């Protein structure tokens, strides 16, 4: 599924999908039947009988997805599938992509610079920078890659708790609201250690929540800052 415009201008949506089915090796009746099925799936109804050149951006993107699905491939290469879509169209496209990847068993290679879309649809990410692999791994592991962090709100003897943190070598940062973000040092770091420190320093931990790096942080770290 190419990113840019690529639809033959003088054919209807149905003809485009059926033609590309035929070019892939489907017999003409199969291609036509299959074209209807995939157009139903992507949500192109009566518009399938109109010229593809008259479609809106969202419908064009869905038509491009339909033509990619017409021969039911195991692997789909999607290049910026949400490019140029309004929020509703983007959501629909992401739903389709998520459905294909997680429920229909398709393998997807999804190229995008929209990291929230990637985070929502993909399980494994490869960040390329200047033609080289900068970061690679599952999204779950990448967003923990710099060590486990937790955000805590401290009650009681806050100063003593901070001193205990420094003595045990756990780095931390204070947020504007007064909460502390504590780096546990390793991915499997145990929060029980924090509760132990709080008990010894007569402090209480009102809330403890995990802090995950966003994919954007991972990306920026991988390519060497915003300028990368």
């Amino acid at each position, binding site marked *: 599924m190419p990113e840019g415009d690529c639809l*033959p201008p003088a054919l209807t949506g149905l*003809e485009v999908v059926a033609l590309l089915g035929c*070019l892939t090796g489907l017999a*003409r009746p199969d291609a036509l039947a299959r074209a209807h099925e995939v157009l139903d799936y992507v949500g192109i109804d009566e518009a399938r009988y109109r010229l593809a050149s008259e479609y809106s951006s969202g419908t064009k993107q869905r038509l491009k997805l339909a033509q990619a699905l017409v*021969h039911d491939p195991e692997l789909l290469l999607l290049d910026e599938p949400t490019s140029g879509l309004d929020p509703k169209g983007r959501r*629909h496209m992401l739903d389709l992509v998520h*459905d294909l990847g997680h*429920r229909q068993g398709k393998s997807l290679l999804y190229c995008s610079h929209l990291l929230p879309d990637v985070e929502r649809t993909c399980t494994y990410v490869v960040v390329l920078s200047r033609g080289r692999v900068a970061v690679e791994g599952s999204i779950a592991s990448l967003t923990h890659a710099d060590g486990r962090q937790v955000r805590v709100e401290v009650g009681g003897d806050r100063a003593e708790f901070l001193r205990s943190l420094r003595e045990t070598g756990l780095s931390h940062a204070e947020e504007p609201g007064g909460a502390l973000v504590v780096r546990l040092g390793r991915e499997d770091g145990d929060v029980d250690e924090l509760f132990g420190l709080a008990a010894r320093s007569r402090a209480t931990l009102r809330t403890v929540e995990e802090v995950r790096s966003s994919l954007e942080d991972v990306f920026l770290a991988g390519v060497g800052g915003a300028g990368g």
Partner: protein
Amino acid sequence: MARTDTEIYRRFRGRLGGTRTSFLALARAGIAAETRRKLPMLILYAPPAIGTVIFSFVVYARFSLQAGVTPAAIGPPSPVSAIASGFVSTLIQVRDQIVLFHISMSYFTLLVIAWFGAGAIAEDRRSGAHLLYFSRPLHGSGYLAARFLSLAFFALIAVLVPPLVICTVAAFASPEWSFLKEEGRVIPASIAYSLLWVFVWSSVMLAISSLSTRKTLALVASFAGFALTGAVSVLLSALQRDPRFLILGVQGNFHRIAGWMFGMRRLGLDWDVRWSWIVVLGVAALAWAVLIARVRRMEAAA
């Protein structure tokens, strides 16, 4: 859970076949796309159709007169019967009428070739459709074959059907099938000349189209090229008072080949026909070299 607005995804239960003839689907789609536009079809095919009707009537009238039927028997006075009577009175042989009609009509078909060929590859490049085509198991040769077949289809309708219709009328109107017995070689010659004409001009037009990203530019370039080569050869021929300078234009060479194929000396071109073949086939070879290079680039880009 992901949700789509319409139906669930259905797996394809059939089987993918071979793709060796899949280019025919692309050719068929090209024809379907062009036939969708009715007005250009009407404008481009109306003159050959009208010419075919008139010349068929002329041929029919000539054989009828030969068989002893008077002009009054052709029908009531009308513009058509007046034209027919005028042609008949020239006493040109039926074969010559057909050949001259064929040659003059083939020049008109350049409009058809230009119109349907100018956008054939240029529009694919502009819209990026080749990215989709070449993402399938379709090679450059298949793509070229598809585009060529689409264009040849439209061109052959304009250049081959009219003489075949007239020959059919002549065959049925002639007494004792005399047309087939005496001038029957006009039919294979017409087919051969039409195929050559369509092959060469379609190749040239597709090559021009492959060099352009807009149909309009390709149209302008093709008319400019045609007019330029034709004008230079005709001008030199007139200035030097030597018809052999017509060899510099592709059109003059086609005239020479037509004279040779149809066995007509009255076209007045007497240079060695081999030179004409070399020029015409050389132009076609050049066009295909351009086409192959351009389509390879498109394939690589996809």
